């Protein structure tokens, strides 16, 4: 018999069956399945990702059709930029990332099945970290779908307007992956930390929509504002995201460091909570 408290000299327990890659892939698939089957969240995320884009193009197309002299065609470069702002900078893309990330972080606990996964003997850290790629995959699927819609609309409704070149389209694509991906991972970690779905959603939206812009606009905070996630994300944007011009000029290294910092801190907090909480 051993003492309840583990000792440093104890060898790590043998792994369960299957190679670690196979098990990780299966666990990722299982976590993705859970998200896919959470229809209510998925429908809302789809609506949030696609509806603004559809509405944007529809309104502009109607306006242009009704008075072509006054209103430009619905597509072209300016619509491409507006689409990027909707998905990457403003509420909608981040909201999708938050919804998916929070669901991934709290799904097992809120359904009461976390304990049933723990009693398999699988490491709690493995249970936590399998949520992250599943959430990213689902989030990016939705965001990429919306981005494809933006690009299609940009070219289809361009009329005689200038359109983005391949590099701009790729830049926009990369920016969206970063902007929503980082927030999604932060949401997974934060939700796993607080374990309350409504609490995590409210706190993250409040931070994203209210607190971040507010703090960014307080000039007396100086360079301290550089640690705000949105500021670092904005650095990678190919367009100006914030109409209020509160964006700071971060160096590439600082922006990258801030992103990594947010990821590390929230992943660590989520992993710690998942490892130590009573199941």
């Amino acid at each position, binding site marked *: 018999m051993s003492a309840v408290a583990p000792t440093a000299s104890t060898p790590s*327990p043998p792994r369960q069956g*299957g190679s670690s890659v196979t098990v990780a892939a299966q666990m990722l698939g*299982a976590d993705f*399945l859970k998200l896919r*089957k959470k229809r209510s969240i998925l429908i809302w995320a789809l609506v949030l990702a696609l509806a603004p884009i559809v509405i944007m193009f529809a309104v502009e197309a109607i306006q242009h059709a009704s008075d072509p002299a006054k209103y430009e065609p619905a597509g072209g470069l300016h619509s491409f930029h507006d689409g990027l702002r909707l998905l990457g900078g403003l509420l909608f893309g981040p909201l999708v990332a938050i919804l998916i990330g929070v669901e991934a972080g709290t799904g097992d606990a809120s359904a009461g*099945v976390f304990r049933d996964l723990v*009693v*398999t*003997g699988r490491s709690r850290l493995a249970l936590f970290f399998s949520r992250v790629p599943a959430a990213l995959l689902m989030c990016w699927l939705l965001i990429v779908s919306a981005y494809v819609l933006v690009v299609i609309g940009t070219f289809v409704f361009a009329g005689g307007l200038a359109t983005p070149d391949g590099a701009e389209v790729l830049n926009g694509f990369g920016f969206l992956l970063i902007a929503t991906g980082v927030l999604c991972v932060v949401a997974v970690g934060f939700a796993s930390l607080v374990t309350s779905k409504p609490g995590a959603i409210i706190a993250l939206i409040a931070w994203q929509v209210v607190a971040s812009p507010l703090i960014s606009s307080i000039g007396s905070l100086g360079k301290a504002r550089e640690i705000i996630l949105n500021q670092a994300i904005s650095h990678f944007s190919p367009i100006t995201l914030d109409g209020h011009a509160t964006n700071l000029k971060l160096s590439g290294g600082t922006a990258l460091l801030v992103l990594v910092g947010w990821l590390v801190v929230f992943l660590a907090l989520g992993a710690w909570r998942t490892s130590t909480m*009573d199941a």
Partner: protein
Amino acid sequence: MSSPLNASTTVAPVPERAGSGLAIETTGLTKRFGARTALDGIDLRVPRGSAFGFLGPNGAGKTTIIRTLLGLTAANAGTMEVLGYPVPLERAQALRRVGAIVEEPRFHPNMSGRENLRIVAAVRGPETRARIEPALARVGLSDRAANKVKSYSMGMRQRLGVARCLLADPLLLILDEPTNGLDPGGIQEFREMIRAMVEQEGRTVFISSHLLDEVEKTCDAAAIVDRGKVIVQGSMAELAQGGGVRNELILGVDNVELALTTLSRASELVRDARRADEGLRVELVGDPRTVAEVNATLVRVGVGVTRLEPVRHSLEQRFLEVTSRLDASPATEAVEEVEA
């Protein structure tokens, strides 16, 4: 057996058992929640290949010890082994062949029964996926496996919980109040399934319950727990008799005074004899064969014996006895002080 729960097993056979003869062993296991002591130095020995009942009133600490054994919550002191592996040191290895239902079985309600099992199978490892269909068949849920769990009755969820346990091809099943929500037919099927798992497949089943009748009918051995302490443990017969052999008789006689006097002199046969509502209650010194000698002794002095009936000790009797005795013990007072 005809019920789906007891259909001929298609779950992979249990390999030859290894390690000690105990499926669960704890020594001095202690768990506190703040000032309240939920487990107070629990010493538990669960033999392999048996159905073991963990019996106690609500709030006695039954679920807490299960949660502690499974690593769902940390113990404050003591040691424990599951299937011969120290926990939490080698928890992963210990739980690899353990299936457990803790409190009520919970699932993702928006997913089907089969999908819920796929989730757990993915976590347990690639070899587990092949056990999903046999496990569903074993609990009689193959036909409903594609339905969402939110449409399942409580009994079906219990069955699905057992199917989830079977994914581990368990050497040890830990079931917390497993018959909650089952109708009488379901309880009977469940009981038969447990017995089949123990007798035909050599698995160990640890059942926590506050239902005396259920434990008495299902289990080979049991422990009675109350207020975080194991009061007594042993085989069902030992428990019912109070841990030792205690042979008692109910006697009906035509001359109570003469019978009491005679029996009080026959100390080689009788430990104690006293009046009771039903006549005389006599505790024998030896085994039940001395009943004939007691009868002969009374007849020799002219006492007419109208009734001679061995007392059958029930688990319920014993349960009430030990828990009420605990109520008056100093240890209990100490626990109560802590709780206060």
